[in-house]
């Protein structure tokens, strides 16, 4: 009987000893995104991919889709068919990533420009309108002049969707300007069949008027 009592006593003592070196479950040694680490030289827990790694489904073999070029030339067509859902997606992405500078109507007078950024290009300037879609893709990916590249923030399909929306914007405001070259009209025809004389299938999506522009302007200048 004494033996049993003694061993129970020992077990409890043991438990108390182990208690002292318990693992804190709330702060586990595994890493979470962006957590620092003093194990690696660069101080980051996330490791960069080994050179040449290709994740499943991410072999970038579609040059047209990923670079906007074909045999070194800027493309003039979209890599996939553009329909209303693509343009809608483009509109949403445009308003997030481009409208701060280019404005929701694309005239180049967004909020950040009003706060001192260089005036962004207007999509309605003849020179800009006549650029190929491949050029637009290149601008979004690598930047242009004062504008930084957006490859880290906008994925490739969304970049093309944004371009489709910009084309729709240009089309919707082309009433009193020269019509777009037929070449670019082909760009956003739903299935490749185009009749340039017919109304554009996307002209229903007229841009929303800028509404955020003049609202608040607290906070000091420069």
């Amino acid at each position, binding site marked *: 009987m004494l033996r049993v009592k003694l061993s129970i006593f020992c077990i409890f003592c043991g438990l108390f000893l182990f208690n002292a070196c318990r693992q804190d*479950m*709330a*702060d*586990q040694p*595994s890493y*979470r*995104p*962006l957590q*620092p680490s003093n194990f690696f030289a660069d101080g*980051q827990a996330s490791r960069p991919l080994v050179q040449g790694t290709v994740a499943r489904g991410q072999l970038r073999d579609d040059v047209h889709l990923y670079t906007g070029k074909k045999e070194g030339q800027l493309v003039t067509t979209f890599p996939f068919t553009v329909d209303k859902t693509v343009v809608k997606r483009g509109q949403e992405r445009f*308003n*997030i*990533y481009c409208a*701060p500078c280019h404005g929701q109507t694309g005239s180049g007078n967004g*909020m*950040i420009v009003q*706060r*001192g*950024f*260089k005036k962004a290009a207007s999509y309605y300037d003849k020179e800009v309108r006549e650029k190929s879609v491949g050029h637009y893709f290149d601008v979004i990916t690598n930047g242009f002049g*004062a504008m*930084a590249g*957006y490859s*880290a*923030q906008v994925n490739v399909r969304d970049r093309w969707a944004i371009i489709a929306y910009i084309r729709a914007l240009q089309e919707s405001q082309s009433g009193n300007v020269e019509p777009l070259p037929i070449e670019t009209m082909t760009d956003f025809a739903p299935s490749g069949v185009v009749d340039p004389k017919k109304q554009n299938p996307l002209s229903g999506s007229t841009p929303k008027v800028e509404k*955020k522009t003049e*609202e*608040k*302007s*607290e*906070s000091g200048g*420069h």
Partner: protein
Amino acid sequence: MAQIFPKNFNNLAKISIIVTALVVAIGGGVFNLIVIRSSYLTQAQVAIEQPIQFSHKHHVGGLGLDCRYCHTSVEDSAFAGIPPTRTCMNCHSQVWVTSPMLEPVRSSFETGKGLTWQRVHNLADFAYFNHSIHVNKGVGCSSCHGKVDQMPLMWKENTLQMEWCLQCHRNPEKVLRPKEEIFNMEWEPPADQEVKGRELAKQYNIPSKELLTSCSTCHR
């Protein structure tokens, strides 16, 4: 030898045991009800100092930037993402370029060494949370993070305790909103939220309360 304790000390001893037990019970209750939920322990509503005075009030409320401009992965991953220095430099290559407030951003951009933001929200590692499922199923940022567009420095609007997760998982209809409103900081439930919420729950295919409150949903 004379007795040290007279006989009536027996009663006193008993009473003092009961009183101690009561004090412990009431104290524990107060601790549980008030102290554990207090902002002193949970850090809720306490603004956190950062290496740079980055203001959501100016960038979201003032400039009208969308959350996704900076928190790019919030729609399709568990982690919302904190913007890299490059994102700040998209604008601050030209705006406020001489401001000493932005010196850390510029030197981080030049040296390639990231900024070290202090975490404001940090769940215990044994709990699983995922942004994309909430954001894609009609739970807006402001339902959990409050009016971010009015925060000069970021704070945690809610305690993030299990109790808080559960009060919504038991009754998600109260907060569900249409897809277009997710990033709208001004959204308030309309008068007929009861009906709308139930419709949206059906439309989004929200699982049953039993599933949403079962332990393995969050402790996996």
